[in-house]
């Protein structure tokens, strides 16, 4: 099974090809002009259209408003992308910058949630005077609408981000620390140690991730700490395998031999010589791991086995809107759904970029 884990590299190579193919003709074809009026107009048009969508279509059909705003944003994205590529060269990746911005915003919002002027997110007694099931309207006091208790969805989404991020970052941290330790030990000592850790890894892999989570949720209290621990078990096998694989290659290198010749202890070899080299590829993998774990946490909470309401989490917020409320008030599902999607998408995109850049296997190509 071990040779399979390293296979999902081809998409990266293909994407590089993509980028090369798509950017090459543009550079040669377009003549140099002083001001790209077309792109400026497109960007402005996009901003105006989405502004009109937000402000002027407030009382109309929600779907129409959404369509207009999205169309405006797409126009602004295309126009802005052209402008920025002119300014900073063809390699400028607007999507990556937007993803970074989104994640930074989310992180700050989550960190500062207690001091931000947000509506009530959890205590039903605090939202008695708020309208229930209000549709999203960016210019109202409830920008993203309210749920069936009148709780503010913007506030709930941000507090949900706190839970999601704490749980998944914690799980990745635990998984990386334990996994790197086990992987290095396994690759360094080989023999029986390797076999035992290998069987342990395979056993973790023998239960499908979600089923493992559900099984643990049956018996554990659904606290943040327990959920993070359960999620870290999902991260563990792949981290162990990656750490073991890099250890196997690095342990044969000259600098390890040199350290050994100078009389370094086994502990020192593992911690000072191997660990720094093993951690780098793991760090770029961590980004993708976080996105996988955010989805896992959201799935668990969606199934009612993770973070329990009234504590908000993206998963249980989506579960709230499922069923009969879904047809009349789709925003209850769509608001946390879009936030979840954007976060996962951003992490995947940046993770892919980071992997292309830092993964030594990719660098050799």
């Amino acid at each position: 099974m071990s040779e399979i884990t390293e296979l999902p590299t081809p998409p990266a190579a293909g994407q590089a090809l993509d980028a090369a193919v798509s950017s090459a003709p543009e550079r040669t074809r377009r003549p140099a002009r002083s001001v790209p009026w077309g792109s400026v107009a497109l960007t402005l048009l996009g901003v105006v259209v989405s502004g009109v969508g937000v402000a002027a279509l407030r009382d109309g059909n929600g779907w129409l408003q959404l369509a207009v705003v999205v169309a405006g944003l797409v126009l602004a994205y295309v126009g802005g992308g052209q402008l920025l590529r002119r300014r900073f060269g063809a390699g400028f990746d607007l999507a990556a910058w937007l993803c970074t911005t989104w994640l930074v915003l989310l992180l700050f919002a989550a960190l500062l949630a207690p001091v931000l002027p947000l509506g009530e997110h959890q205590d039903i007694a605090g939202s008695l005077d708020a309208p229930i099931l209000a549709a999203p309207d960016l210019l109202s006091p409830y920008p993203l609408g309210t749920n069936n208790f009148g709780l503010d969805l913007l506030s709930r989404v941000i507090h949900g981000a706190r839970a999601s991020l704490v749980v998944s970052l914690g799980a990745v941290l635990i998984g990386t620390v334990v996994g790197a330790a086990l992987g290095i030990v396994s690759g360094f000592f080989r023999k029986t140690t390797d076999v035992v850790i290998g069987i342990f890894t395979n056993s973790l892999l023998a239960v499908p991730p979600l089923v493992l989570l559900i099984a643990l949720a049956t018996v554990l209290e659904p606290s943040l700490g327990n959920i993070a621990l359960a999620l870290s078990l999902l991260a563990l096998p792949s981290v162990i395998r990656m750490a073991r694989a890099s250890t196997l290659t690095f342990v044969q290198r000259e600098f390890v031999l040199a350290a050994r010749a100078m009389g370094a202890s086994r502990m020192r070899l593992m911690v000072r010589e191997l660990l720094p080299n093993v951690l780098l590829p793991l760090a770029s993998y961590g980004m993708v791991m976080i996105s996988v774990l955010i989805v896992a946490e959201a799935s668990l909470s969606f199934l009612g086995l993770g973070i329990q309401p009234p504590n908000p989490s993206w998963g249980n917020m989506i579960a709230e809107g499922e069923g009969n409320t879904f047809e009349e008030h789709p925003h209850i599902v769509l608001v946390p759904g879009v936030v979840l999607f954007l976060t996962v998408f951003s992490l995947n995109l940046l993770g892919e970029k980071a992997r292309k850049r830092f993964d030594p296997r990719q660098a050799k190509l």
Partner: protein
Amino acid sequence: MGRTLMKRAGELAAVLLIVSFGTFLLVSLLPNDPAVSILGPGRAPAEYAALREELGLDDSTLSRYLDWLGSALTGDLGQSVVPPQVDVLDRIAAALPVSVQLAVMGMGMALLISIPLAMWSAYHAGGRVDRVISGGTFGVLSVPSFLAGLLVIMVFANALDWFPRAQWVRITESLAGNLYHAFLPALTIALAEAALFTRILRNDLITTLQEDFILAAKAKGMSARHVLFSDALRPSSFSMVTLIGLSLGRLIGSTVIVEYLFALPGLGSLVIGAADTGDFVMVQGAVLVIATIYVLTNLLIDLSYGVLDPRIRRAHV
């Protein structure tokens, strides 16, 4: 081949033993006494003691495990601990076909969607359609399956009203009805898989299409369709077969979610319902069955490489 097979079988046995032990240990993670969880609080202490005696909870962990494993191997996974105290194995046997059908249909639909998309993409690599497909598949991969399922329901069941939600017709009752009701759940499962397959197959196809034998086929005047389907597909499909094996875990996960979402009587709904009520005996049994199927399927996929690619067969011997 024989020796590899023996080695794999040994590993497999060890893995299954550990998984079963882990599953068994679930009970000891329970925050309170299993007897209290089963009977509920507020009974006479003698009743709890009697139940503990009956369940053998006072014996040592190892002897309890061996007991449990012994009866599991003879097909007795125990009784559900939550009121309709049904036989766990019966419930699992009734639920399993639904899950297997959904997973197989989802995988089949994913292949049906992804092969033509990947071929179009690879044949016109770098073109507009290719870029849209690449971006689209990347986006679809970032949609969690429960969200995808809700969107599928929103479009096909609520807005268009083409398909029903939350009904299941057994295949023994009516084949057409069964396929009709299984369509939306299978589509939900297929979406993410199709996106992944399209990306992998496209990349492999692009490499294959640069080979000399493709040039030769084109020079002989073969049509694009013939070149793609007859010459390029098979040598490009190895990564995808690997991926089918790798994505099996996720496939089972999305089957679980889809069953919950569409209220289908499969293994996933069974596990989630049991987890919700704290029916750990049911969860233990289901996890054991799912893990066994998962490990065995992975073994079969590993062995299938040799069939697909003779070079691997030689390398192993």
